């Protein structure tokens, strides 16, 4: 594969922070190799402090690697060319609190070189998309965490970038908002966008990502598609309706006679999230 076929290509990416005062070294990321293909939804998983945000900042060029190299669409990270093609939602986003949502989007819109009618339309479109039309003229310092997260998403999407970096996009967001974010990620994927997101909430990762990396203390522990990582090899599952106890016994006997074994019979459960959303949307 060519360098340009990757949205992000990192090899041997290492970052050490030197702590102020004590001058102690802290290894935040240790020799990470990571290739994200164009059009992929890529999950960075790991507990707190495992190096997810550090990886994001390295992709953005906000910090420089101690060693190793990293490219975004074949451009050096942090270059203007690379930043033109990406949008970033920071962890716990915070915006100039003295501005309203509309003002802040206008401000950032000008910085991604939108102007005039195009800018105005894009801002309205995004306010609508992230579901904030009612609060759009309120100062952001009155916003809740989940609302800030939505504005964070809107500003990341302003210039319709090809690569989206979402650092803990669902942290502090209610289940409905969280589902909307998930749907948004899927909609963007459909339009050919590449999305890299980090999370420590595993359930959500499972629903949207094509591939994941699991980080722990700055080291890559696992990498692969969810199918590869999660399917229990050598076992299969049916979902059946109208299964009577007699039929179940017959099936078990049939399986046994064919050399297979019935491992487990249980009722599929709906997910609490789905149940919750159906309950409140009634």
């Amino acid at each position, binding site marked *: 594969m060519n360098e340009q076929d990757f949205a992000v290509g990192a090899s041997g990416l290492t970052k050490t922070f030197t702590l102020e005062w004590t001058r102690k070294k802290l290894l935040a990321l240790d020799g990470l190799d990571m290739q994200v293909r164009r059009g992929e939804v890529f999950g960075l998983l790991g507990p707190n402090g495992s190096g997810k945000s550090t990886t994001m900042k390295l992709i953005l060029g*906000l910090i420089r690697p101690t060693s190793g190299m990293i490219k975004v669409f074949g451009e050096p990270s942090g270059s203007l060319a690379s930043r033109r093609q990406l949008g970033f939602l920071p962890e716990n986003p915070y915006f100039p609190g003295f501005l309203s949502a509309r003002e802040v989007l206008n401000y950032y819109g000008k*910085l991604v070189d939108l102007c005039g009618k195009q800018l105005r339309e894009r801002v309205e479109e995004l306010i609508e998309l992230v579901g904030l039309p009612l609060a759009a003229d309120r100062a952001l310092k009155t916003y809740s965490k989940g609302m800030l997260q939505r504005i964070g998403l809107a500003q990341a999407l302003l210039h319709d970038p090809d690569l989206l970096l979402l650092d803990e996009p669902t942290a502090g967001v209610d289940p409905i908002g969280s589902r909307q974010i998930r749907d948004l990620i899927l909609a963007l994927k459909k339009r050919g966008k590449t999305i890299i997101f980090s999370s420590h909430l595993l359930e959500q990762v499972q629903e949207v990502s094509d591939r994941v990396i699991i980080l722990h203390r700055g080291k890559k522990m696992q990498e692969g598609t969810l199918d590869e990582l999660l399917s229990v090899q050598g076992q299969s599952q049916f979902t059946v309706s109208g299964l009577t106890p007699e039929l179940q016994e017959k099936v078990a006997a049939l399986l046994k006679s064919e050399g297979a074994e019935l491992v487990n019979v249980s009722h599929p459960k709906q997910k609490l999230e789905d149940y919750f959303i159906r309950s409140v949307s009634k």
Partner: protein
Amino acid sequence: MKNSLRHIFVIAGNTFTEAIRQKVLYVLVVFCLIMLGGSSFYTQFDFRGDDFKFMKDLAYAAISVIGLLVSLLGAAMLIPAELEKRTIYTLLSKPVRKFEFIVGKYLGLVLLLTLFVTLMAGIFMLAVWGHESSLTAGILKASQGHPTEFQQQMINEFRAGAYDPAMWQALVLIWAKLCLVTVISVLFSTVASSTVFIVSCTLFIYLIGHLQSVARDFWFSQSGGASWLTTAFLAAVSLFIPDFQTFNLIDEIISGNPVLWQNTWHILLYSAVYTVIALAVSALLFENREL
């Protein structure tokens, strides 16, 4: 290039908006207004021509001191806040260069100072105009509209004292001085992240800047001149620290001594060169800072 300029202006505009939505600013402005208003209050008791000198002294002092506070606090509050609240991450994830951020912040604060000085000067002029018209009206009333030659002379004197064109010079110099303080504060903000620390450092440079030419005169006037060490030290100081002493021209103007515009232009040019260099150094330092 065109984008760069646009980014700088957009960031400057945002900085200005942020600054004028700070409560501290209003407290300072109110203080300044009290000082300006106070000056015309004290002069209401006696009808003398040098009232205007008194008003000017107080007004320039108010604008200088409060302006100094505004310029000391401006960058020292806004730049660390941007880092602490990590809004800088969002900003720099956009195709914005770090120097555009620095220059934008600086220009936004310059805009703020311009508005501040203009507004305060405007209000001061109103106070002067009010006082002058009440004085002349008093004389005209006493003479029933036909002032004697002596009274006319007095009126002319009042007006000359009130509307001294050299005032513009003083205001421009005060403004330039405040802008210079701001650029130093911006410089410190690119390496430090504590408001108190940045204000202290800027104030320190401000004081040294006032003392350096005094020190120079002192050392060179000693018998046998200064040692090479002192000379080198003074040279280094005068290279890095702006000579705020030159702004003492403001005092000359206020005390009524004529000062050539040429001298004012020299100071403005000196300030501009210093500012450009300081901004370049700030951008360089900020470029290399881990955020």
